[in-house]
């Protein structure tokens, strides 16, 4: 089960808080999300995730590309040590420009 909380701290910022399992079986819920025009900043809070697989990572990469296209800043926040390790394993820490641990 994946839960997605969408927050709008201001009109040009979107904050997604994901919790539960982001995997092959649930990822479409995230992919189906459309981001409004005029986005300047997209924050994705992963602290509530219990599980993520390569399909979940692919969805994050897709969000990253959408933000890039909109010239918005993309940031993954609240990483657990496990997720940080996984993003490192898959070299996504560099793509997402994570600050060093």
């Amino acid at each position, binding site marked *: 089960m994946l839960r997605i909380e969408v927050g709008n701290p201001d009109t040009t910022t979107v904050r997604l808080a994901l919790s539960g399992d982001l995997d092959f079986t649930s990822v479409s819920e995230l992919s189906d999300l459309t981001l409004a025009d005029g986005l300047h900043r997209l924050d994705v809070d992963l602290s509530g995730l219990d599980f993520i*697989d*390569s399909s979940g990572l692919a969805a994050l990469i897709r969000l990253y590309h959408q933000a890039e296209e909109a010239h918005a800043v993309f940031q993954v926040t609240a990483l657990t040590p*496990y997720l940080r390790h*996984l993003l490192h394993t898959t070299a996504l820490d560099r793509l997402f420009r994570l600050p060093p641990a």
Partner: protein
Amino acid sequence: MEATIALRLPRDAASVPLIRQMLDAALRSLGVVPDIRDDIELMLTEACSNVIKHADPSDEYTVSATVHNALCVIRVIDTGDGFDPHRLREAAPGAEGGRGVQIMRALADDVRFDNRREHGAIVCLEKRLSFLPDAPLKAG
């Protein structure tokens, strides 16, 4: 002590969380440390999602996991068209796909892909186990 779980599953996305949960619960009962259980959940998920995504035209697949001598050996076997593991390329930095095999290789102590043209793919994943101090029996 030796433990085996074996499932014959429909090639249906709902089977993936099921086997993941089942194996994780079994490893927890055996007292396997959480980090190793997390790695195994992920390796297993990658192998099984690949069957769901790629193993046309099979409609069932099997998963078995054996724990013996502090080693967990997982076999995911489908009857799809199989694939040539030597032709897999590393995923480009911004590419969305192609990270499943990369993850399996990173997390497993050993990964073997086996293929028989008419019998589909066999993915064999091995992971060395560590146990909590209060693990029951010497599961090792």
